[in-house]
């Protein structure tokens, strides 16, 4: 595929009774992010994106989308069938979140320049159907989007208690909200810096070149989301996690963390996710997705996590 795809489909890889069900670290925002970011990757950023949201994607506040896209966002309602075609670059995003009893979780996004800014689809189902009619070269299928045979059945959906976690007060290594926001370009979009003086590419973006020490000749360097080789790995067992991750460890028993090589002078420490895809070993390649990490100061925080970069199914 040359250039970014025109549409993206995503189904969580986790299966309960054969149905795709979001993992503990997935929510409406991460599902939307997973399909949206694939459509804007590599495009020259517009001054702002026109954003049409459907289903659970509607519940995500504007600033989250703006942080994700790195630009201003103008929201339009999908339900208004009188919407005029827009001259602005448009993204149509739909997220369906099922209850635990029925249905599937999934997300779909379409770039408006394909649909010509036409009337947005009123339902996620219709958008999903329309994308099926696009040429295969125009659509990227993510997660368990491809139906697969004999899909692993995940453990029962643990009863997350976000309210309890959100209520947690940090002591000690508090990462204040402002510092968290400062890290979003690196944590969410894998943006690092290239130094115009010595040429070194560093990660994450810290505002100073680790090679020559200069801070005034740095430009943003975007790393690919996928295909990074693992150079170190550990599995955190109960008790070795920072307290922010207590609820997660209570439910999952622990998690894996890997050090992934983004480039010759750039590495990222990433928590692993989607254990259904199997453990990650040294030398494996990993893909990344935006996921929930932990709650602090009353909000969920997000970062990219790693999973095996191999075809699902």
């Amino acid at each position, binding site marked *: 595929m040359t250039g970014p795809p025109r549409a993206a489909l995503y189904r969580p890889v986790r299966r309960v009774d054969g149905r795709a069900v979001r993992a503990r670290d997935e929510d409406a925002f991460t599902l939307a992010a997973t399909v949206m970011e694939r459509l804007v990757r590599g495009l020259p950023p517009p001054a702002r994106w026109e954003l049409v949201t459907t289903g659970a994607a509607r519940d995500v506040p504007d600033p989250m989308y703006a942080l994700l896209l790195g630009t201003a966002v103008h929201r339009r309602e999908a339900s208004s069938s009188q919407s005029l075609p827009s001259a602005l670059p448009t993204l149509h995003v739909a997220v369906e979140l099922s209850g635990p009893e029925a249905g599937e979780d999934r997300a779909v996004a379409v770039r408006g320049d394909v649909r010509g800014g036409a009337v947005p689809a009123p339902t996620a189902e219709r958008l999903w159907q329309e994308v099926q009619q696009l040429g295969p070269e125009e659509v990227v299928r993510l997660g368990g989007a491809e139906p697969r045979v004999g899909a692993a059945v995940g453990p029962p959906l643990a009863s997350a208690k976000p309210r309890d976690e959100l209520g947690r007060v*940090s*002591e*000690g*290594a508090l*990462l204040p909200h402002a*510092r968290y926001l400062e*890290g979003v370009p*690196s*944590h969410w979009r894998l943006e690092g810096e290239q130094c115009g003086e010595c040429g070194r590419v*560093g*990660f*994450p973006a*810290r505002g100073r070149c*680790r090679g020559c020490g200069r801070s005034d000749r740095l430009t943003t360097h975007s790393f690919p989301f996928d295909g990074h080789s693992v*150079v*170190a*790995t*550990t*599995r*955190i*067992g109960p*008790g*070795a*996690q*920072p*307290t*922010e*991750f*207590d609820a997660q460890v209570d439910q999952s028993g622990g*998690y894996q*963390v*890997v*050090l992934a090589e983004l480039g010759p*002078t750039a*590495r*990222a*420490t*990433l*928590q692993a996710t989607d254990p259904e895809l199997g453990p990650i070993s*040294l030398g494996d390649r990993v893909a990344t997705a935006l996921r929930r*990490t*932990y709650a602090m100061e009353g909000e969920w*925080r997000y*970062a990219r996590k790693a999973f095996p970069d191999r075809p699902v199914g």
Partner: protein
Amino acid sequence: MVGAGHTRFGVLADGPRALLRAAVDAAFASVDRGLDRRSVDAVFFASLGFGGWQIGNAAALAAEEAGAPGARALHVENACASGGFAIHAAVEAIASGGTEVALVVGLEKMNDVTNARRRYWLGVSGDTEWERPAGLTFAGVYGLIASRYLALHRVGPEALAEVAVKNHANGALNPNAHFQKPVDRAAVLGATRVADPLGLFDCCPVSDGAAALLLTSPAAAHRYTDAPVFVDGIGAASEVLAVQEREEPTRFGATRRAGEAALRAARVDRGEISFLELHDCFTIAELLALEDLGFCEPGAAGPLTLTGATRRDGRLPVNPDGGLKAKGHPIGATGVSQAYEVFLQLRGAAGARQVANPTRALTHNVGGAGATAAVTIFSAGGP
């Protein structure tokens, strides 16, 4: 060094003030011809302030409990390397000519707080903007490093286990040690995994404790004892905080630079050093330190350890006191405790764990996962 004192390390009933008093009183009691507390010019207090206890102005409290209120007092905080850096601050203050007698005291009271708060605090000294949000405390950071080290050098986990076996054997002879029970290799390898490939016996414990040193100018030392221990050289350095931003995660640049600087300042070769006190917060850390300090090539520390060379009766004894692994690791006290062991060993007063005829020793104290390091070289000055 004319005096040194040490409390028991472990889960202790004593509070921080009591621990400070005990360590300082022991240090004064150890001075052969006595030392008047009022002659202390400066107090250097090493502590992380674990759990939030008296983070601000803690040095004044330390001076007060030392019985030297009124002395110049400075709080040194470089995470787990606070003690090593406090010793350096004292040495430099004395070398400047403005200080004749300095008290260095290190303390951490880690078991006052709940389990949850303790884990918050165990992750405050790493990179809090990237590595911690990925779910790592130090066990996890060292777990990552260990996985890479073992694969890179084709070393088996038994090399890590041997570090634990050796240090537990030494700790069994140290009445101040947190753990005084030997362990065998099978127990280490079979222990619960904490941060794979590191298991429970690869990790140092969370300890309470304090240690204190009395340092004077070299000229004044013989006023207090016939057997002072001299500081021959100090070297300290820092390194990028996050391990992911370093050139090679299995090499600690701060240790390398600090070690080179200390050896240069002391004008000694590695072969002249009788034993080492290395910062083994995790078993992997002792192997890294042996390599970064130049006592063997990268990848050779595991095989070297397996030959028994680093045992107390080996060619190059490492951590005869049990190290952080068995003696315990009350953060601010650790670097001071290493010098306490040197004080005993070089004066032939280490009892059952005495190394045979040591003349010089090197201590190595690391902050976090290598972001800071302090190396000090000592020699026996006795008759």
